[in-house]
């Protein structure tokens, strides 16, 4: 634990959380595209860090570990979203809540929907490469897979998004 804190140049666990809070939040939001849900994911990842910080191997690269944990937590957030929707039905008529993405454009909405429908690996590859601007090598190292695998996931994800968007456009009157 001391080695981890020293390497991260912080003096306590709270400072460590403070250091990475923004990184976790940004990544979570990129995946879930919803402020409330991104907050939940951020909180779960901070909890995971609290619980596991002492057990991380000294050679663990914390930024990469957090990227993996946050990505997985965000990819698993779909189930929770379904539950929440039930509670928010009554509030559906209210104006859009503060903190949500202000972009209500059709293209943005369609892209968000199509992106959310991608299989996990494809979605992670597209988001991390295009929105987080990670290299394929970085993504591969983060998830412990080969660079070739990430490239294939990215290529198939982008192709699928294109098909989905084309179908959406043809369905729109």
């Amino acid at each position, binding site marked *: 634990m001391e080695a981890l804190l020293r390497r991260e140049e912080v003096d306590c*666990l709270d400072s460590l*959380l403070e250091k990475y809070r923004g990184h976790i939040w940004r990544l979570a939001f990129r995946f879930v595209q919803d402020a409330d849900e991104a907050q939940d994911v951020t909180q779960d990842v901070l909890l995971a860090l609290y619980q596991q910080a002492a057990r991380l191997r000294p050679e663990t690269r914390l930024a990469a570990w957090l990227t993996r944990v946050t990505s997985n937590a965000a990819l698993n957030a779909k189930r929770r979203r379904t539950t929440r929707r039930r509670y928010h039905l009554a509030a559906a008529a209210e104006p859009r809540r503060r903190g949500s993405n202000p972009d209500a454009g059709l293209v943005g909405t369609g892209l968000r929907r199509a992106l959310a429908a991608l299989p996990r690996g494809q979605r992670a590859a597209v988001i991390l490469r295009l929105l987080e601007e990670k290299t394929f090598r970085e993504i591969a190292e983060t998830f412990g897979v080969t660079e070739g695998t990430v490239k294939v996931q990215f290529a198939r994800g982008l192709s699928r998004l294109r098909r989905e968007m084309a179908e959406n456009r043809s369905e729109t009157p």
Partner: protein
Amino acid sequence: MSKCREFEDLLPLHAVEETSLDEALAVEEHLGDCSDCREEVIVLRELSVSLRRELSHVPPLPDPWLADSFTPGGIAPAPGLAGWRGIALAAGLILAGILVGRWSMPEQADLRTPAAVMSTAGAGARSLVATKLRRPPGFSVFSPAARRFLSEAAHRKEGAISPARTQP
């Protein structure tokens, strides 16, 4: 057409300039003969630009301790809380403050009020509890993950971070 299939996975990579030199030369040669694939690359390139433009926006990280970040109709951290919400809130504040505060609380901390506990608890604990205060009615004060964490922390001895397993 069968030739096009060979390039299926390369076209998206070519569109974002992620092909190797050999791959790029092969793709360009194919594009010279195939208008469908040429069109496909253009559309994929536009899509990647749209994705970046439309979905790159990330709002600032909400600070649960700023008063205006509490949503209207949510549970406000002000006097006047009554009933089970107030009880659950106070219990949650004290429990989280004491448990998580073990890592960051000064020796002589004043623990007489929830506010005092929260002022000495770590940022993580404050964030955890405050986030849960913003839940709409119908949600429990803590998420399952938070409850599990707090339950494990309750069994923890002398502030060690590795969680103790509860007996089955």
